[in-house]
């Protein structure tokens, strides 16, 4: 029994059959092929094969309702597989092109995180103040205004996934995103505070101090259809990119609100 022929060889089945009341009707190859192809109407079948024709036609008949009952689940699986998400319970991780794209995004996110960390340190050194890495992270696409608590991170409901895709779209299994680490550290969405303090001074895009967030202010919420809240948005301040569905990766040139190095805070988030 070879690898491709796992099922048992054709067993002699004569001893399993009840006594035959009449001899088997011979079947020529052409008739057999027409039966198998469904091209032989039972009325046109040779004697003894009309019922066989009916059986074969029934086997190839139109779908029953229960056979199509799983369509919604199949479509959901299709969407999940195309997104390249983490593996759901009982299912294998997407492989092939979807898996490659996911791994590429993870690698890009690691590079971007390292870069963001470097920029934060440089910004503090140059700016001499506690700013925020929000603008930089946002500009790099590592966060969006719609991230928020309850959407990810350890213990968070659902999965934390940036609406803007670029470098952090998709997660490798077990690899926390920047947002998840932030959520774990601060117990809320992705906002950054300098110097480790919860309410440090932050500088806006133009170097002006920004009013620190009050404890009561709700951080921006993640979600594809939810608009950004105003917690980090001040009049006159350049707003980070709006949350959108499935945005393509942005290049550095296309990112708004790069901000100045002076707006960065120490630490990462």
């Amino acid at each position, binding site marked *: 029994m070879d690898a491709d*022929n796992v099922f048992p060889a054709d067993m002699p089945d004569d001893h399993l059959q009840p006594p035959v009341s009449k001899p088997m009707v011979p079947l020529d190859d052409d008739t057999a092929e027409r039966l198998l192809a469904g091209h032989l109407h039972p009325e046109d079948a040779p004697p003894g094969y009309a019922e066989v024709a009916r059986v074969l036609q029934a*086997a190839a008949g139109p779908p029953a309702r229960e056979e199509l009952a799983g369509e919604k689940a199949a479509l959901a699986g299709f969407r999940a597989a195309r997104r390249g998400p983490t593996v759901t319970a009982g299912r294998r991780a997407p492989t*092939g092109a979807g898996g490659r794209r996911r791994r590429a995004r993870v690698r890009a996110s690691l590079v971007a995180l390292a870069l963001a960390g470097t920029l934060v340190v440089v910004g503090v050194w140059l700016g001499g103040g506690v700013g925020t890495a929000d603008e930089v992270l946002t500009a790099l696409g590592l966060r969006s205004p719609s991230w928020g608590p309850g959407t990810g991170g350890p213990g968070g409901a659902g999965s934390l996934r940036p609406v803007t895709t670029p470098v952090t779209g998709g997660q490798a299994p077990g690899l926390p995103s920047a947002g998840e680490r932030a959520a774990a550290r601060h117990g809320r969405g992705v906002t950054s505070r300098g110097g480790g303090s919860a309410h440090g001074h932050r500088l806006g895009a133009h170097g002006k101090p920004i009013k620190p967030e009050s404890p009561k202010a709700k951080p921006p919420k993640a979600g594809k259809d939810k608009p950004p809240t105003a917690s980090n948005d001040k009049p006159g301040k350049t707003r980070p990119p709006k949350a959108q569905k499935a945005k393509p990766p942005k290049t550095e040139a296309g990112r708004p609100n790069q901000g100045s190095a002076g707006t960065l805070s120490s630490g990462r988030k």
Partner: protein
Amino acid sequence: MIGPSFEAVLAAAAGGDELAFGILWRDLQPGLLRYLNALAPGAGEDLASETWLRVVGRLDRFAGDERAFRAWVFTVARHRAVDRWRRSTRRSDELVPTGALVHLPAPDDPASSAVDAISSRAAVALIATRPHEQAEVVLLRVVAGLEVAEVAAITGKRPGHVRVLAHRALRRLATRVGQPAHVRGAV
């Protein structure tokens, strides 16, 4: 079969179009279920889900016409069924899957119900009473709509052997469904 629009449907599905994927799914799923339930009774739905998961992951790399696509999907399905059967086999010297052991006609003999009611499920169950190789070949020909060469490629057999198995299965089916009911259900 989808027909002349298959290529457009496939391309759309490979590009992420859910509606196009739904067309593919509705076209193949009933046949997949019938085939897999015959190979692995009770596990057809799980195996079909695993099959689609694998197919979706490789959809953008498939190249071929509709017949080739059907053959590919059923090839993936067969591999899933074989993998499951291998995992479930406890003894390495067990030659016959449990589900394919002696098919003693039961009071609800599929042969009786198939001829009388002619439901697809009963018809497939009747075909599945054949030895595994015969049943598989007939199901791939009839349910999956594949030709001899495609069935041969999927099952790893020569085309001539596929024909012999199919014809033998038809003759045995004729014998079985042509018997009086008391004979069919006697044993």
